[in-house]
């Protein structure tokens, strides 16, 4: 008999709402089957079981919000008494979370910068835009720090709220999905910044050979089957991680756990704001076509709000590609408990000196943000060097 628990879908998650059971009690389930829908601050996720067996009666009803680790149902071994209710004390029990330990208590942030009024930068900007004097604003953040909402409250007191863009009722509206998303991201990056001593390395890569190779491949294909340059970057990252496996893993219990499988968390910006970095599984084993398809599927589902729980927890490293937005260099924030984040900037023509000649090549800056507890700069440098080398032989990808 096994327990099916509310999973932790990230370093930042403490509880989740069971939205819907997708499988009836008494149904046979296999490891990997999706049995329930769970809502977190990051949206709606399909949750899988990790054992084979027969799903027992729900111990948590649809609509309930419970802590991570709470038993949602029992999974009985096939052949055993299929449905029996669990001992009451097991309900609500918490277990250790092997992959993503709960965040430690958040230390109070130090009082703001040395100014008379403590306010967040965005609150300052908003106050300036709206002509609000910060001295007249009552801060509701830790230590009375002024946030955007505080400025908005002064600028648009409830009676005048109709002037706002959104239709407003008399009482405070429930937290919107995007502000919940913002809080989830805030929790994860705060933990990262607090716990992970990052080091950063960057290297410039001549992508001309790889892009020429890809263009000649795409020229022979109908538009639907063409491959985007980022697919080469993902595959090359996986190849380089094969050579430098210490960057592919998790930092848990004060030591590095190197992972065999390479599941790349791919940062996807959402239309409504915020981002998720769900995992593309076993990137090193996928063909370029397979990887393009997996990436397309993942982006569509991330933006459509139908990711699997395991996709949020199983990434062993993250790749973020900000080249589309014109960024040259990405200085990443590692997603705990991972130990590295690889960033790609914009592909652009740059002067390139080689063999005593100056030419123009299409280049990109690749960066590595890595956990200094797990690895050192020497090893990080070896990774970027390997990545460069792998990209010079695109036909081998």
């Amino acid at each position: 008999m096994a327990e099916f628990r509310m999973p932790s879908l990230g370093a930042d998650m403490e509880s989740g709402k069971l939205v819907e059971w997708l499988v009836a009690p008494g149904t046979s389930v296999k490891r990997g089957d999706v049995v329930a829908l769970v809502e977190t601050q990051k949206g709606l996720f399909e949750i899988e079981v990790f054992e084979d067996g027969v799903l027992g009666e729900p111990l948590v009803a649809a609509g309930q919000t419970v802590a991570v680790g709470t038993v949602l149902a029992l999974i009985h071994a096939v052949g055993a008494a299929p449905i029996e209710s669990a001992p009451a004390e097991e309900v609500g029990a918490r277990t250790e979370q092997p992959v993503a330990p709960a965040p430690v208590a958040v230390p109070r942030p130090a009082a703001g910068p040395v100014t008379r009024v403590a306010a967040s930068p965005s609150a300052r900007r908003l106050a300036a835009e709206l002509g609000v004097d910060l001295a007249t604003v009552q801060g509701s953040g830790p230590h009375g720090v002024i946030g955007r909402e505080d400025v908005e409250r002064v600028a648009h007191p409830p009676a005048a709220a109709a002037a706002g863009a959104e239709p407003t009722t008399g009482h405070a509206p429930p937290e919107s999905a995007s502000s919940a998303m913002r809080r989830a991201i805030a929790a994860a990056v705060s933990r990262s910044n607090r716990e992970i001593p990052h080091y950063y390395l960057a290297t410039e890569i001549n992508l001309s050979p790889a892009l020429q190779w890809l263009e000649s491949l795409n020229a022979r294909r109908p538009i639907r089957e063409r491959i985007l340059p980022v697919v080469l970057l993902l595959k090359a990252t996986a190849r380089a991680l094969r050579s430098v496996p210490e960057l592919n893993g998790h930092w848990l219990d004060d030591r590095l756990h190197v992972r065999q499988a390479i599941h790349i968390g791919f940062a996807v910006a959402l239309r409504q704001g915020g981002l998720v970095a769900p995992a593309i599984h076993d990137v090193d084993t996928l063909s370029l076509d397979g990887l393009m398809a997996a990436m397309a599927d993942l982006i569509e589902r991330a933006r459509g709000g139908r990711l699997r729980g395991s996709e949020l927890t199983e990434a062993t490293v993250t790749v973020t590609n900000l080249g589309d937005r014109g960024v040259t260099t990405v200085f990443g924030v590692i997603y705990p408990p991972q130990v590295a984040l690889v960033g790609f900037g914009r592909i652009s023509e740059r002067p390139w000196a080689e063999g005593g000649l100056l030419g123009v090549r299409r280049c990109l800056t690749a960066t590595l943000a890595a956990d200094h507890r797990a690895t050192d700069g020497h090893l990080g440098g070896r990774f970027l060097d390997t990545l460069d080398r792998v990209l010079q032989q695109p036909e081998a990808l």
Partner: protein
Amino acid sequence: MTEEELKAIIVAELKKVAPESDPSGLGADEDLREALDIDSFSFLRVLVGVSEHTGVDIPEADYGKVTTLAAMIGYLAVRQG
């Protein structure tokens, strides 16, 4: 297809990848990707949809020629069968 019909197809495809936007209100010469905050993946989806609805092949080398509404309409208008 008339230019109006081509525009309707393009706008419908843009709306699919940027559902919260109003692509019909775009200026003819605005950069589509910039104005609607569309990444290269979503832009490829738009081109796939436009290409399949109009029957016009858009080779990768021409992606740079279809960056605005006016440019894309013009590109499709002279190539449609």
